[in-house]
C-alpha cells in the first residue's frame, strides 16, 4: 500500500551567502562559487515572498543586472535561464555563468556599482512543519490541494523536486509511487515561470480532477486549461 501523502508548511531561514557582487565579473565569481542554496534562493524567492515571479519573470540576478548594472540585454538572458535549465540548479548555474562570460567578452570596460547597490548573495534553509493533513488517495489529495496555502504548494510541487527537504514528500514522486505514472509525468513537467502559484495550484487540481473523472466524462474539471504551465521537455 502506498504511503500517505503528508502535507507540510515551510519555514525559511535565510543566511548570509558569503559573496557580494559589485560588477559583472563579481557576479560571475559569485554564480560560479555560491552554494546551491544561494542560487535556489535568488532564482525562486519571489515565489514564497510574493507568490509569483516579479514582472517579466525576472529572477534576482536578472533584476540586478538590469537595474544596477544597467545591462538590459544581459538581464533578459539571465531571466530566460529557466528555458535552458528548468528547475535544476547546476544547469542553471552553468547557463548563467556562460551568459555572463559571453557578455563580458563583448564589453569594453567594467562598470562597478556604487557602494550599497551590490548584490548580496543569500542562502535559504527550509524547515518543514507537518500540517497534520494527510491524503491516502487522489480524492483526498485533491480536497486538500484545492485549499492548500501557496507556501505549501511551492514546497511540495517545486522545492522538494529540486532538493531534498527533510520530512517533505514531492508530489510527482508520490503519484508515481502510487501507480499514477502518467499523472506523475504531467505534474513533473509543470513549469514555474511566469505563472503565479495560484495558477500552478489550480492546474494541478485540474489534472487531479480529470484523473478522477469528476466531471463525468473524463475531461478536465475546468479550473484552468490544460495547455497551461507545462514544460515541453
Amino acid at each position, binding site marked *: 500500500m502506498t504511503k500517505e501523502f503528508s502535507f507540510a*508548511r515551510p*519555514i525559511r*531561514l*535565510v*543566511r*548570509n*551567502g*558569503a559573496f*557580494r557582487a559589485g560588477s559583472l565579473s563579481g557576479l560571475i565569481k559569485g554564480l560560479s562559487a555560491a552554494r546551491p542554496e544561494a542560487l535556489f534562493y535568488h532564482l525562486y524567492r519571489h515565489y514564497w515572498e510574493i507568490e509569483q515571479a516579479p514582472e517579466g519573470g525576472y529572477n534576482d540576478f536578472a533584476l540586478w543586472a538590469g537595474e544596477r548594472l544597467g545591462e538590459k540585454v544581459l538581464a533578459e538572458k539571465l531571466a530566460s535561464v529557466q528555458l535552458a535549465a528548468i528547475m535544476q540548479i547546476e544547469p542553471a548555474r552553468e547557463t548563467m555563468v556562460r551568459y555572463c562570460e559571453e557578455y563580458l567578452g563583448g564589453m569594453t570596460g567594467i562598470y562597478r556599482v556604487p557602494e*550599497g547597490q*551590490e548584490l*548580496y*548573495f*543569500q542562502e535559504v*534553509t527550509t*524547515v518543514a*512543519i*507537518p*500540517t*497534520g493533513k494527510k491524503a491516502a488517495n487522489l480524492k483526498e489529495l485533491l480536497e486538500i490541494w484545492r485549499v492548500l*496555502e501557496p507556501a505549501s504548494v511551492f514546497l511540495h510541487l517545486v522545492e522538494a523536486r529540486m532538493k531534498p527537504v527533510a520530512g517533505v514528500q514531492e508530489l510527482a514522486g508520490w503519484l508515481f509511487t502510487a501507480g499514477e505514472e502518467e499523472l506523475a509525468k504531467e505534474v513533473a513537467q509543470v513549469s514555474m515561470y511566469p505563472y503565479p502559484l495560484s495558477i500552478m495550484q489550480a492546474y494541478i487540481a485540474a489534472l487531479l480532477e480529470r484523473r478522477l473523472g469528476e466531471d463525468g466524462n473524463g475531461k478536465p474539471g475546468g479550473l484552468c486549461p490544460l495547455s497551461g504551465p507545462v514544460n515541453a521537455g
Partner: protein
Amino acid sequence: MATVNLADYAPLVGQSMLDEIKALGEKLGGASIQHINSTAVGGGVAEILARLVPLMGEAGLKSEWTVMEGTPPFFQVTKTFHNAFHGVKVDVTPDMLETYREANRQNYNKVDTGANFVVVHDQQPLGLTEVMNQQQKWIWYCHIDPVDVDHRVWRFLGSFAGKCHAAIYHLPEYAKGLGLPEYLLPPAIDPLSEKNREVTAEEKAQVLERLGILLDKPIVLQVSRFDRLKDPVGVIQAYKMVKKITPCQLILAGGGAADDPEGAQVLAEVREASEGDPDIHILDLPPTANLEINVLQRVAAVVVQKSLREGFGLTVTEAMWKARPVVAAAVGGIKKQVLHEQTGLLAHSVEGAAWSIYRILNNPAYGEVLAKAGREHVRKNFILPVYLRTWLGLLNAMGQSEGYSGC
C-alpha cells in the same frame, strides 16, 4: 495590562500558524533559552524581548530574559561603541576596553550556564561569551547596522562575537563574515501591545488633550529617540519646506533610552532648531508612554522616519501596522519595509522627504493606498507571531546541526 496569549493572535495570523508554533516548540523538547541585553526599557530590543520571552515560554521553551548591570562609565563606553558602529570617528582607549571587560566580568554570574541557548543582544553583553560552556549554543543578535564600524572597536568586539555558534543580523549587508552561520532575521512588532493595539475614541481624545495636540492641521510625525542618527533637525527642515505651501504641524515624539547619555544634548539642539514655530511640538516622552505613541501614530497624516542610519526602524513598522502613510529614509532595514511607491515613499534627502510629505498631504487617497499595502506587508512579515515562528525554526535548525537531543 491584560496578559496576552498565543491564541490572541489567531485573528491576525490564522490558527494554522499558531499550530506550527506549538509544533516547533514541542520539537525543541523543553529546551531552555536565555536572552541577555543591557536595558529593561527603552529601545526596540527591550520592547521585543518583553513580548517574545513569554511567548517562547508558552511555545514550550524555558525562556528567561536577563538585563546586565552596568555603571555610567560602562554605558558611556558602549554608547561610544554604538556610535563607532555607525561610522562615527571615536577615540578608543585601553581604559575604555578595560571598563567594558570589567562590567561584563561583573555580570558573569548572571549567565545561566544550564541554558541550552544563550542569546546576547547587541554589543553590550558580548563580553559574557567568555563564560560559555561547550554544552551551550550562543547566538549574537546584532540589531544595529555594523557596516561602517570602526576597525579598532570591531577587532575588540568581533573577538567575542566570533566565539558564538551563530550570529543574526537584520540585513545581508550587515553580515560581518565571522566564519559561523550568519542568519538574517528582521525584528517585529507586537500588534497587541499597548503601543500597537486598537485604541478607543475616548482614549484618543484623552491622550491628545493631555499632550496639548489639536487636530486643526494635518500632523507630520516622527517618533524616535533624540539621537543625531535619527536626524530630527532634518525632519524640521523638511517640514518647514512643506509648511510654506501646505498648512501642517510637526510632532517630534521621543525620549532617551536608559543606555543613551547623549539624548539630552540632542534634545536641546532640536528645541533650538524649532524655536519660533508654534506648530512644532517636541514631546520628550518617558519610555512607558506607549499609549501616547500609539495615538500619535494613529492621528498622523504622514509618519516620517528620516534616519541617517537605521538598524531596522521599528517605528516605521508601527506606523505601517496602523495603516498610516510613511515617508522614510532609504537606509538600513527601512528598505525592507518601505517598498517605494508600493508600501510607502522613500527619500534620500531633506528635499526628497519634503516633496514626499507634500505629495501625501495633497493626495490623501494615494496615501491611503500606500498605507493599506503597508499594513499587509507588515502583517505578513514583521509581526510577533511570524517572528516567533522563525525563531523557533532557527533554534530547531541549530539543534539539528549538532544533534541536540529533543530536536
